[in-house]
C-alpha cells in the first residue's frame, strides 16, 4: 500500500518533558484524517514535527516514501490562526499570494499565473470580495478562510491543518468541510487537528486518537468507539507514561 505520510518511532520532548512518545503512523493516500485528543496531547506538535518546524528527538518521517526536504513543495499547511499578528499591515490578497512563495523561488516576483491562482483560491473560499481588505478587518472565520486559500494555492498533495475549526462561525465551518471533501475527491490527503468529538464522524473518514502516544488509528468506524475515547481522555494514560520517567 502506498502511504502519503509515514511516521516511525517518533518522540518529541520539550526539555525533559515528553510531548510525543514513540509515535507510529501509516496514513494512506487520499484520506481525510482527523487527529483528536485532549489539550496537551501533542496534536499540534505532531504537525509541527511533520513540517520540520520542530526537531524530533528520534524517529523518521516520510512523505510518499521520500524525506521532507524532497517533497516540501508538495506539502500544504494551515497554521493555527492565532499564530500570526492580524494587525500586520497587509491585505487579504497579499496573504493568500504568500502560498505561492515556495514555488516562485527566491528573489523572483510572482507571475501572472500565481496571481490568477490567488484570485481563484479567494473565490473558492468565498473571500474574493474581501481581496483588497486589510486583514485586521476580518472576523475569525474569514481569517481562517484566508489561511485555507493560502494553503490551496500551495497546490500540494498532502495538507496539514492545525485546528481550522477553532473559533469559526457556522458558515465558515460548512465551507471548510465542503473544501475538505473536495480536496479528498481530488485525491489529496488531508490531515486535520480537531478538537470536537461530536463532528468527527461527519467530517472525517480516518481518525487518530492521540494522547502523547497513539491510542488508536484507523478508519473512523473502527476507531471511534466509547472505549477508545475513554482511554484517550483519561488522565491515566498520561500518568502511566510519566511514572515510567520518574527515575
Amino acid at each position, binding site marked *: 500500500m502506498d502511504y502519503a505520510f509515514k511516521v516511525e518511532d517518533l518522540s518529541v520532548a520539550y526539555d525533559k518533558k515528553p510531548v510525543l512518545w514513540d509515535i507510529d503512523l501509516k496514513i494512506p493516500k487520499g484520506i481525510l484524517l482527523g487527529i483528536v485528543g485532549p489539550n496537551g496531547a501533542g496534536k499540534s506538535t505532531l504537525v*509541527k514535527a511533520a*513540517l*520540520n*518546524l520542530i526537531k524530533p528527538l528520534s524517529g523518521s518521517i516520510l512523505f510518499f516514501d521520500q524525506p521532507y*526536504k524532497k517533497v*516540501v*513543495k508538495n*506539502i500544504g*499547511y494551515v*497554521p493555527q490562526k492565532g*499564530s*500570526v*499578528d492580524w494587525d*500586520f*499591515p*497587509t*491585505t487579504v490578497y*497579499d*496573504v493568500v499570494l*504568500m502560498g505561492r*512563495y*515556495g514555488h*516562485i523561488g*527566491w*528573489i523572483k*516576483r*510572482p507571475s501572472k499565473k500565481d496571481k490568477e491562482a490567488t484570485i481563484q483560491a479567494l473565490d473558492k473560499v468565498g473571500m474574493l470580495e474581501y481581496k483588497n481588505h*486589510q486583514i*485586521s478587518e476580518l472576523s475569525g472565520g474569514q481569517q481562517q478562510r484566508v489561511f485555507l486559500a*493560502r494553503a490551496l494555492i*500551495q497546490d500540494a498533495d498532502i495538507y496539514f491543518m492545525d485546528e481550522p475549526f477553532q473559533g469559526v462561525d457556522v458558515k465558515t465551518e460548512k465551507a471548510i468541510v465542503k473544501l475538505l471533501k473536495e480536496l479528498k475527491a481530488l485525491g489529496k490527503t488531508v490531515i486535520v487537528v480537531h478538537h470536537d468529538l461530536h463532528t468527527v464522524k461527519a467530517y472525517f473518514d480516518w481518525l487518530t486518537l492521540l494522547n502523547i502516544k497513539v491510542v488508536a488509528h484507523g478508519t473512523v468506524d473502527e476507531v471511534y468507539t466509547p472505549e477508545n475515547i475513554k482511554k484517550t481522555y483519561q488522565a491515566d494514560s498520561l500518568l502511566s507514561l510519566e511514572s515510567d520517567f520518574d527515575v
Partner: protein
Amino acid sequence: MFDLSYTLTIVLIGTMVLGAISGMLGVFIVLRRQALIGDALSHAALPGIMIAYLLVGVRSLEVLLIGAFVSASLAMILLNVIKKYTTIKFDASMALILSGFFGFGQMLLSHIQKSGAASQAGLSRFIFGQAATMLRGDVLIILSVAFVVLLLILLFYKELKLYIFDEAFFKALGLNEKLTSTLLTMLVVIVIVIGIRMVGVILMSALIIAPSVASRQLSDRFSVNFMLSGLIGALSAGVGTYLSATRANLPTGPMISVVLGTFVLFVLLASPKHGLIKRHILVYMYKYQIRKYRKLIHLYENPSETELNPTEYSYFIDNNYLKLESGQIMLTHKALKKIRSIKAVD
C-alpha cells in the same frame, strides 16, 4: 534662510540617505516586534570603535566602522547564545548586552581621552553623532553601503515580508529561515554602523524605530509603510541635521531624535487613519447618538410597547422618526435607518 554651503549639502545628502534606509529597514524590525534589538546593537558598537582605535592608532573612519561592525555582530551572537542556552528573558538579555557593551566602551573612551593623544579628539562624537564635521569621503562610504543595503532589501523584499508576518509558514514552505534571519540582523548591524558617525550610538535606534511607528499610523499597506517610513526618516534626518549644523553645532543625534519624536507625537494624535483625535471623536459621536436616540432604540427592541404618551416623544415625532397611527406610536423608515446605522458601528 537656507544657507546651504557645499559642505552642508554633502552632509545633508548623507544623513537623508541614512534616514531613508534606516526608516525602510525599521519597518521590518518594528513589525517583527524587535525594535529594541536596534537599540542594543547600536550601543554595543561603541567598544568596537575604541578597540579599533587602540589597535590602529589613527582615526580613520573605515577602520573604526569595522571595529563597530565586529563589536555589534559579537553582541548579536551573544544575544542568540543567551536565548538558546539560558532561561534569561530576551528583553533582560538585551538590556544586559546594551549596558555591558556600552559601559565597556565608555570606559575605553575615558582611558583613551586621558592619554591625551591629539588623534583621539573626536572619538566622543560617536556617542551623540556629529554630522556637520563629516568629510566628503565619509559620506561616500555611507552612500555606497546604503545603496547595497537597499538593493538587498528590494531583492529579498517578498521573503522578508513573509518571514516577519508568519515565520512558521515561511519555514513550512521550505524557505531558509536561518539565512533570512541572519540577513535581516546583518542589515540592521550594517545600517547602525554607517549611522553612528552621524547620529551616535545612543540615538541611532530612534532613526530605525520612529519612522516606521509614524508610518504605521498613516497606512495599513505594507508597501506604503515601507516607502513612507523611508520618506519620514529622510525628512526628519534632513531637518535634524540642518538644525544641528546651523545652530551652534548641537550634536546631530539628539536633534534628529527631537524632530522624529515631535513628528511621531503629531501623527499619533492627528493621523486621519488611526489618530487618537479621530478615534476619540468617533467614540464620542457614538455615545452621543446612543444617548440622543435611546428612546427610539428602546422602541425598536421592544416593538410591543406602542401605547405611549405622545408628548414624551414630541421631538422624535416632529422630526419624522415616529408617527402616530390610530393612537399607536410607530417607528418610521427614517428611524429604522438611523438605528441600524448606529448599531452597525463597531
